[in-house]
């Protein structure tokens, strides 16, 4: 256990329309067993003690599962450790005397609310457009009626592991949301239960995505940044389904 003396360069912005700035904040005596967010908690406690306003940042479960936390740390979404959300990042990954630059997610579709907090509700719009299986409460058949091959269930689970944090968008030079949308769509499109709405789903989700986000040009930064290491192969699955949805034009043929 060692103590680190750090300097934080933190993005501060009073509100959505206010201009932002970097504040330089000294953070001495940081125990390296702390998580990154505990370090920020401590910095905030010190700011309050000085009568200053605490740094606003989104966070909640601190177990890497709720997807609430974010942060560009030295230009990397969720910081330097692979497959790790900011809340699970520990200070032992940093060195004594280091300067750390902390910024919010940067994307037009994720406007800054205050300091490091952004609005990610565009993700909800994509799911509302079709990221579900229509299965109203009460009518479900026995769960073992439709066997699902283990490999299919496993792949669906790999996609469903997405925590919706937005790191993929923040890391993408185009601010594209292909990895998020592909993970959501593929989770359902791979399962037998998701087949009836497969093409309708992918079309609605992709079209909604494009209202908010940039276009994918296969940089692959999203996969690198993803705290759940979701594979960009799912983007290929989504693109194939999307193409098919347009070619088959099922929406018109089935007259639904």
């Amino acid at each position, binding site marked *: *256990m060692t103590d680190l003396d750090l300097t934080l360069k933190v993005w501060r912005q009073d*509100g959505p329309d206010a201009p932002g700035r970097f504040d330089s904040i000294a953070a001495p005596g940081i*125990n390296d*067993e702390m998580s990154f*967010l*505990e370090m920020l*908690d401590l910095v*905030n*406690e010190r700011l*309050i*003690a000085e009568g200053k*306003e*605490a740094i*606003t940042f989104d966070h*909640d*479960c*601190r*177990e*890497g*599962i*709720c997807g*609430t936390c974010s942060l560009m740390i030295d230009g990397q979404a969720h910081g330097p450790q692979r*497959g790790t959300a900011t809340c*699970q*990042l*520990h200070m*032992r990954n940093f060195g004594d005397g280091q300067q750390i630059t902390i910024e919010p997610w940067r994307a037009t579709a994720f406007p800054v*609310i*205050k300091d490091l907090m952004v609005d*990610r*509700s565009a993700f*909800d719009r994509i*799911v*509302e*457009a079709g*990221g*579900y*299986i229509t*299965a*109203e*409460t*009460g009518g*479900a*058949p*026995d*769960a*073992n009626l439709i*066997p*699902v091959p*283990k490999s299919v*269930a*496993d792949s*669906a*689970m790999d996609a*469903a*592991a997405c925590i*919706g944090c937005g790191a993929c968008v923040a890391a993408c030079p185009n601010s594209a949301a292909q990895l998020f949308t592909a993970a959501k769509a593929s*989770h*359902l499109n791979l399962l037998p*239960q998701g087949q009836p709405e497969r093409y309708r789903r992918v079309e609605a989700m992709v079209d909604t995505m494009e209202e908010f986000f940039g276009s994918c040009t296969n940089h692959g930064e999203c996969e690198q940044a993803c705290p759940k290491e979701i594979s960009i192969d799912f983007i290929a699955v989504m693109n194939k389904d999307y193409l098919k949805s347009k070619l088959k034009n099922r929406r018109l043929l089935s007259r639904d």
Partner: protein
Amino acid sequence: MSITLDAKVPDGPVAEKWTSYQFDRKLVNPANRRKYEVIVVGTGLAGGAAAATLGEQGYRVKAFTFHDSARRAHSIAAQGGINAAKNYKGDGDSVHRLFYDTVKGGDFRAREANVHRLAEESVRIIDQMTAQGVPFAREYGGLLDNRSFGGAQVSRTFYARGQTGQQLLLGVYQQLARQVGLGNVALYNRTEMVDVVTVDGRAAGIVVRDLLTGELTSHSAHAVVLATGGYSNVFFLSTNAMACNVTAAWRAHRRGAAFANPCYTQIHPTCIPQSEEFQSKLTLMSESLRNDGRIWAPADRDETRPPEQIPEAERDYFLERRYPSFGNLAPRDIASRAAKIEVDAGKGVGPRKNGVYLDFSDATGRVGEATIEERYGNLFEMYERITDESPYKRPMRIYPAPHYTMGGLWVDYELMTTVPGLYCTGEANFSDHGANRLGASALMQGLADGYFVLPNTISNYLAPQLGSSPVPTDHPSFAEAEATARDRFAHYLSIGGTRSPDAFHQRLGRIMWDFCGMERTKEGLEKALSEIPALHEEFRKDLRVTGDGISVNQTLEKAGRVEDFFELAQVMCLDALTREESCGGHFRAEHQTDEGEAERDDESFAHVAAWEWTGDSAQPVRHVEPLEFEAVHLAVRSYK
């Protein structure tokens, strides 16, 4: 005003009550449902499922969450699984067995009729969630896989890797998102409920605070459903998410909803021990790990060798020793207390000697590292990220931590609180787990309440109101509640003291952990009851909240939540003090057997204690709902 606790349990044998209730209840015609408005606060499993289902059925629903998205609710963090009496393994499970295990697991302090209904509905939950696309773990043949959890001798736990809560919540969130997209549910995110409004003794609506602008607004409806989770964060350090709080339930309590069994808190045995002073939360390691992990402590208190060098003969597998038939899968309260006994005896491990080992080497030898990785890979990774030690190479270190609260708002069989028209579902209510919840039963209860119970029972209240409109939000009661909330938040900003809300919360948590945690004594509780009001008084005078009340201010949000914890903490200690017995998670040192097991007093305490707010948090009134056991015989709960 005095409260009467009428549980409204239907007549008839326990196995037929729910069926007969569903037939007898009043219905609302599908075409009339759009004439009703329902408010749902909270979008976890219980709230999200209720809002989605009510929306599907045709009611006009407003759903509120203080998160940025409905998908963030803390249900998401549940790891291990969800119980259901499917008996897919053919190992003797049944609705009756799940019912029995749950009543026994709760140390005979739950209402039989509710638990039976829960066991009945458990079966439909798995069907429903599978149809929605939850990728539960499967066997190679494509059928659903199961594993075992504490307190059961059958395999009835369905799971999705170590992320079952996440997958179930995403299922619920997707159903809710569909209703939002269709316009049946209006969802208000980043909006926190700060008060319940009653008019003529009935729930009329709520007052909410927009967390982005500080603006207070009122919303009215024919009925209000609270699904706002548990209060483990009263201990400051718990496995709960940082924002989990008691405010919604507590504000309802102050408006007349009785608070039941607040002292029933669950301390989960397998969490990562605290490593440093500024730690903000404790991380759970799923109970499912106890399927393959063996818990032990060194036999010698002066042991200094690393675990792999301690020979078998010098290890004490204390759960297997004390509870041979359930072994490492003893229920949570029992496993937690056993670990505490080891650590208190000086046999703790790790740099702070504050843990015991959870060892996978036997299982790895038996089934291979690949299988262990498939079962628990993500948990092992999480552990390594936090502690910098690999559980594949060295046993995990674990210690109990506050995790779940069985107590909550008192509800009748219909999930209605003592305020007519105000319902409470999920962890926020007190109903189904008695004095101890079994693993993998929280997800089951949240979903049962949200999908299958509340949408059935609420029509019984709504049907007679056909033709009436919700109380308009310009009613003086709304104005009064808004003004009270406005003053409250303005006051926090104006105190201008020296200490942050977190500084107070930390101290409160310490008092609660020391005196109202895993082991309670009369003396300790009395000490807590003198220290809490004193600290609360300091809070009122010395709080410092920086920033303003018209933009995002997380310090201000926290101040309101901490203040409600102060009042809750007092009734928790009072409840623990009054309950002169040990049962489940409530262990009074004065009431134990010679072997150190919990000793119930069924003569005097086979009842629910529900507290009524009187305006003074030191003087609540205690009411009692007797518990009658018809289908299950009261017995000493043995896992030996």
